[in-house]
């Protein structure tokens, strides 16, 4: 029984069958990659995990509880964090404030009215946020305005924000999209480090095979809304079906 | 029954004014992404073009009439318009009489120019600015424009009559089998409705069947891609702004015989037209037109005694009530797209 269990998920957009009968099991503490050509339904599937989309049929279970019909913030509070393709951070705020928001959300839950406490007096939150920034090597940038960060730093910051919540499952949507090779390698190292340091399950959607094969423990290949194969990276590499699916694309 | 038909006619008439203003507003928002609070002022400027034309045509010189005296007991100066003295009382009188239709023709180039100057001089610099800034700067502009008009034309409403041919009303009921006098409707309001239909049809045809229109529509959907195709979309958008200004302006000209223009008519229409646009769905042209007519007709019905006696004051709030209901049941208005103006 995996921590994330997807059974028989279908999703239609008008005339387009975006997902058809998707079954997927992500084992606890694994790093599971979902790959596939453009339009294979990777992002649709991810959106079904986080509450942005509701599948037409099928079930999505996290840790034995159904995710269907729950709002994004409820799903997050259950222990699922998400990294976006383009880093989603609070650009008006400082790096430190960004991370602190995550720490507050983790400590206080989805809503707490605390208008008369003072951020500056929340020593445990500050400590925790500083530790997270250390973890992603951004402690020196804590007071920077996050809008002025480089793309790679924004990604790190987003990662720190997600980790601050101590999620059980981290979803990564093409975390290296649009990055230079050096940044990509840094990100790979960062993810590896994170994985080593804590008990965390990661599900990664990725285009870049270099990233996938450097990281993944298991890989599901998605094509035209259906899982083709699920196997270890070694087995996927030479799989004929995968080659077929990627025909015309650089593997 | 006749009362209902009359209210539908009233609603169509009100609706065509709303639709014309909302159309321009939506055009500007859809193409340029600018929330233009000065759009009501454009309507008002159009109306004052009519006033100006009427005054210019009515320009006169004075002759002293020795037989009459004025209020202080001095000999009365009688006025004679230049137009009449040039063309003779017959032709000249007709020209003066037709000042509103004449003003429509004159208003088009003036409004295109006003729109062009506004876009190039001010709006252009606000494409990348937040909507709040756009609202504030155009609101400031609207105040400035209305105060200038007030400075030169005063605060009183100014009577701008329709040509005398269109005075009086038309027994519409007899045509469709009612008793005489059951449904009579002023000629000018019928003209206004027809005029609005032609303008709305013209704008839609223009957007649909010309290359220019196609580019603009594509630009409304996805500005960046169209820009990538090497098409100078900015220049076309400038023209669109002029066009929207012209539509608002001539709508204002034609409305003057119905509503004597005053300097604050732009602000009076502004809130209403924004409600119309939002109910229609931001950025949707058919939505704006549909919402204009819908709200016009509903407002007319809410003004009926039968309904007012059931719910007192309903005519005061109906527009807002409908707007609230529609926005709560249809998140993006009647025909709006997702993701527009929701940040």
């Amino acid at each position: 029984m995996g921590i994330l269990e997807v059974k028989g998920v279908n999703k239609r957009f008008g005339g387009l069958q975006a997902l058809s009968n998707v079954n997927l099991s992500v084992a606890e503490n694994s790093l599971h990659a979902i790959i596939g050509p453009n339009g294979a339904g990777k992002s649709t599937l991810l959106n079904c995990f986080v509450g942005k989309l509701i599948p037409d049929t099928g079930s999505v279970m996290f840790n034995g509880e159904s995710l269907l019909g729950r709002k994004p913030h409820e799903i997050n509070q259950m222990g699922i964090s998400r990294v976006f393709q383009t880093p989603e951070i609070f650009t008006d705020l400082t790096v430190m404030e960004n991370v602190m928001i995550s720490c507050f959300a983790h400590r206080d839950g989805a809503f707490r009215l605390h208008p008369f406490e003072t951020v500056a007096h929340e020593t445990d939150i500050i400590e925790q946020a500083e530790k997270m920034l250390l973890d992603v090597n951004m402690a020196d940038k804590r007071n920077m305005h996050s809008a002025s960060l480089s793309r790679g730093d924004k990604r790190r910051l987003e990662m720190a924000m997600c980790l601050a919540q101590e999620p059980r499952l981290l979803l990564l949507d093409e975390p290296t999209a649009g990055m230079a090779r050096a940044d990509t390698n840094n990100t790979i190292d960062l993810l590896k480090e994170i994985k080593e340091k804590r008990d965390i399950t990661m599900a990664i959607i990725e285009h870049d095979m270099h990233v996938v094969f450097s990281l993944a423990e298991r890989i599901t290949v998605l094509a035209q809304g259906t899982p083709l194969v699920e196997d270890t990276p070694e087995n996927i590499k030479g799989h004929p079906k995968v080659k077929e699916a990627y025909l015309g694309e650089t593997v | 029954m006749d009362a209902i038909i009359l209210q539908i006619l009233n609603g169509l008439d009100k609706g065509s004014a709303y639709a014309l203003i909302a159309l321009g507003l939506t055009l500007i928002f859809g193409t340029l992404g600018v929330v233009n609070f000065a759009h009501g002022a454009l309507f008002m400027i159009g109306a004052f073009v009519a006033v100006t034309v009427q005054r210019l045509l009515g320009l006169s010189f004075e002759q002293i009439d020795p037989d009459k005296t004025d209020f202080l007991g001095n000999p009365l100066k009688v006025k004679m318009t230049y137009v009449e003295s040039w063309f003779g009382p017959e032709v000249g009188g007709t020209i003066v009489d037709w000042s509103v239709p004449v003003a429509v023709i004159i208003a088009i180039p003036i409004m295109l120019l006003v729109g062009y100057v506004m876009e190039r001089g001010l709006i252009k610099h606000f494409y990348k600015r937040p909507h709040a800034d756009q609202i504030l700067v155009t609101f400031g502009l609207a105040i400035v424009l209305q105060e200038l008009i007030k400075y030169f034309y005063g605060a009183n409403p100014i009577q701008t009559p329709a040509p005398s041919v269109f005075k009086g009303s038309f027994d519409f009921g007899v045509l469709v089998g009612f008793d005489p006098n059951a449904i009579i409707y002023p000629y000018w309001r019928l003209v206004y409705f027809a005029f609005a239909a032609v303008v709305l049809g013209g704008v839609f045809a223009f957007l649909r069947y010309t290359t220019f229109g196609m580019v603009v529509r594509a630009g409304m959907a996805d500005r960046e891609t169209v820009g990538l195709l090497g098409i100078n979309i900015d220049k076309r958008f400038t023209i669109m702004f002029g066009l929207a200004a012209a539509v608002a302006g001539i709508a204002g000209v034609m409305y003057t015989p119905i509503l004597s223009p005053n300097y604050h008519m732009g602000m009076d229409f502004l809130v209403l037209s924004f409600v119309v646009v939002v109910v229609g769905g931001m950025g949707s042209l058919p939505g704006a037109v549909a919402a204009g007519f819908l709200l016009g007709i509903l407002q007319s019905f809410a003004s009926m005694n039968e309904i007012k006696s059931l719910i007192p004051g309903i005519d005061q709030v109906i527009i807002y009530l409908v707007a609230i209901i529609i926005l709560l049941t249809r998140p993006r208005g009647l025909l709006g797209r997702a993701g527009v103006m929701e940040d």
Partner: protein
Amino acid sequence: MSTSNFTRRGLMKTGAATGAGLALPTIFTSAASAFTNEPTGDTVTFGFNVPQTGPYAEEGLDELRAQELAVEHINGMGDGGMLNTFSSKALDGTGILGKKVDFVTGDTQTKTDAARASARSMIEKDGVIMINGGSSSGPAVAVQALCQEAGIISMAGLTHSNDTTGKDRKRNGFRHFFNAYMSGAALGPVLKEVYGTDRRAYHLTADYTWGWTQQESIQASTEAIGWETVNNVLTPVGAGDFSSYITPVLNSGADVLILNHYGGDMVNSLTQAVQFGLRDAEANGKNFEVIVPLYSELMAAGAGENIQGVYGSMNWNWQLQDEGTKAFVKSFGEKYGFPPSGSAHTCYVQTLLYADAVARAGSFNPCAVVEALEDFEFDGMGNGPTLYRAEDHQCFKDVLVMKGAENPTSEYDNLEIVEITPVEQVTYAPDHPMFGGAEASLGECNDGT
């Protein structure tokens, strides 16, 4: 744009004279003076609170012109205007009680709040001893109540609602202008004469307090001459397009439409009623008629030829032929180039009446002024013999019934006087039910101490 040329040098002098300040710091509370804003220098300041922005701005500006003219006359400049015809001769053209009159202006925006704010600033900042002007009943009532609290005199401008001297009457407040009841009482007999007794009236009424009181008054007086009231429909203020209220009229069985609207609303509703053919129509075998109970020059000009033959009432019109009117029209016309409006007349007269009352009382103390004005009878101010009634501070005088002129010779004579209704006919008891009944009371005079 009016530029008054007279005030300039004169004001420089008065300004300099009051500049004699106190050398040593003195501390005193407001209670130390005998009454609010007691004038101590050699000038006294009036506050002219009129709409300078908003829909009634033109009316307000005309009031301002008249008020400036009044100050000029009180200070002995110009030709003296109505001071020459005024029955009281307490004013001699040297200011009031030896003090020159100075004035400040404020903008009411025709809003209750703004009018109060502007009045308060004139009282607190400029130290005015009285406030005059205004163009709507809501602000008039509010300003009157404020003056009562502050302990100065309020001379209302154009306010036609019964409430001003009815349920909202105040000891420190005075109204020269006529009211809705008087309009009805004056119009009734004339309407009976021209339209007969068998008429069915349909009211369109602006949906706020003034509209309601006028409708109530007109309904009462038309029913008194035998007319039937078919319907009374309330219309939103500033509706603009009245078509949906006008279309049901023709098939309602009514043969008279009464428009209880004012200003821009009236211009639009009348224009649109004419467009919908009401004035050409026949109903119940009679010509359909439209009546506008309260006329003003502003509305007449805005409605243009649509007012031709339409009956209404006015407080005063420049075409009157008495000596007072002639004197006022002459000095106003020579200064500004056009005849004064009715609201200008009211504000002019109110300013003179206040100044005269102070002169007669020999004191600026508001309570002394109230005493001087109460039951004061005067003449020569354009309305014939007039009484400022003590019980409600309402002026009682003749009322004009007007009609839109068929052949106006200029833009200023588009209304003509049909009848001057004598004062007896418009007089009512101070405890009339439309005026707050027996409960209404002026309260005590307040001088601010």
